[in-house]
């Protein structure tokens, strides 16, 4: 750090200027990541005013008040507590589904970056698979295999796995043309080594962007399945099932039951999209 005037800088100066530059460079990452982190922390750590899975039969369909901040639903559940508690299952499930999709995308997409008749054939088969309405397919699969929570995970992977495979393969194909891959092969590296040690580090950035988009998509898939009553057992709060319960009350005037979980879904998706946008800009900038 040059300091020609001999003035002592405050010890925090480098930290402040650095972090300020970081924020300016990527407001999306900071805002989106911050909001997401806030929601995750809140759902696990925030003190809840009422038990989210024990209804109070004496307080049914109450409008928002000081006691019930977001009101109560037809069974006497506190909407505020349940909106927060739902994040405990919805968000980690979305993240896990994304992680599983990413792993599958890497394991299948990277080796498929070898141009051959076989890999082209696989991609065409994947095209055919993706041309199905996959959400319908996953609803069918989940309802056939039973109401387990891991079935929701499978649904997310069915929808997002092919996207990851396609993205990673495309990216890897262009990286494979690089001279440094030829150089790697010339060092005697096995194909598996070339793919996972030399090519994979180069696709990390596009994967990061896709991961936040996929998580946003997973939040929607989870909410949609839960809305349809799939993959959820009643007292456990989820945003999707809460919207479903609330939707029935809208016609009789109790708007607050459906709105708040809807807002939570919106915030989760908005934060993830901001994050994706911010990462995308950083990737392009570098």
């Amino acid at each position, binding site marked *: 750090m040059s300091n020609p005037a001999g003035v002592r800088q405050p010890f925090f100066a480098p930290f402040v200027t650095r972090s300020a530059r970081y924020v300016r460079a990527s407001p999306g990452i900071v805002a989106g990541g911050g909001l997401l982190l806030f929601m995750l922390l809140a759902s696990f750590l925030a003190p809840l005013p009422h038990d989210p899975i024990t209804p109070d039969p004496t307080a049914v369909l109450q409008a928002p008040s000081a006691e019930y901040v977001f009101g109560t639903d037809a069974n006497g559940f506190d909407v505020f507590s349940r909106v927060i508690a739902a994040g405990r299952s919805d968000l980690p499930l979305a993240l896990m589904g994304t992680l599983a999709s990413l792993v599958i995308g890497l394991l299948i997409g990277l080796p498929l970056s070898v141009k051959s008749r076989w890999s082209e054939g696989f991609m065409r088969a994947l095209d055919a698979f993706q041309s199905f309405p996959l959400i319908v397919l996953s609803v069918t699969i989940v309802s056939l295999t039973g109401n387990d929570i891991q079935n929701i995970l499978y649904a997310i992977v069915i929808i997002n796995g092919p996207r990851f495979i396609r993205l990673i393969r495309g990216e890897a194909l262009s990286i494979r043309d690089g001279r440094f891959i030829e*150089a790697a092969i010339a060092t005697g590296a096995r194909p598996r080594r070339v793919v996972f040690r030399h090519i994979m580090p*180069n696709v990390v950035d596009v994967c990061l962007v896709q991961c936040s988009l996929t998580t946003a998509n997973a939040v929607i898939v989870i909410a949609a399945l839960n809305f349809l009553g799939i993959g959820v057992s009643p007292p456990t709060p989820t945003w999707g099932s809460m919207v479903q319960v609330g939707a029935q009350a809208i016609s009789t005037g109790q708007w607050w039951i459906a709105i708040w979980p809807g807002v939570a879904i919106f915030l989760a998706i908005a934060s993830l999209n901001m994050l994706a946008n911010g990462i995308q800009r950083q990737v392009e900038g570098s």
Partner: protein
Amino acid sequence: MLRVTGLTSQFRGRAGVVRAIDDVTFEVPEGESVGIVGETGSGKSVTIRSVLGLLPSYGEVVSGSAEFEGTDLVRLNRARLREIRGARIGFVAQNPFGSLNPVLSIEKQFRNVVRAHRRISRTDLRDLAVERLESVQVRGPERVLRGYAHELSGGMAQRVVIALAMLHDPSLVIADEPTTALDVTVQRQILDLIDAQVKQGRRSLLLVTHDLGVVAQYCHRVVVMKSGKVVETGLVADVFSDPSHDYTRQLLAAVPPAPWADDVPSLSGQEVHR
């Protein structure tokens, strides 16, 4: 050491089949340096890629052989070829920034090259990498190891590539225009470095270049190529003093005379930093 006989390779394209090299024959004797010269598109790079099995998927060796220490690399199965590549034949590519992975630290790239052939502990790797970087005159090897390719100068990057190519002490080094992408002032240093490394390790060198001066200075033998064919081959002294082929004569005549070389004023008072 390396005996290439009747090597013929072709590429399949939309317009049909293109024969890139045709009946290429030459030899790299033990401990000698051989230069391949020729204009752009004469098949120099295709020749060495055919030898190393690095042709793209649409290219193939049609006939001929490339015998290295008694084994024909062209007909060798892929697993055995991998054992030879990198370990017994080192490869230095044209553009050092192209041949270094942009997202891996230099240390990771050393690790990758070693790990392609054997296991190594973290501390052993570091010691080895530092030692090898010092042997190619990289200053501050620890700092370089932590850094990435884009932080290096062209000369530095090519030194790193050379150190990587020599990592397994190969008996043959193949260099594909190792100085073309570099600043003129660095070219000589890099060539001297390759030359020194080759001589120290009693290795053989196959040097692809289009600079006849480089061949005259660093090689024992020369292979002159034109449109995919070898037009002349022999000892550098013989070929250059008494070229038997028209094309070689034209090539030699095309080298600009340099009587002025001694008169070029050096920048006074400036030390030359290597």
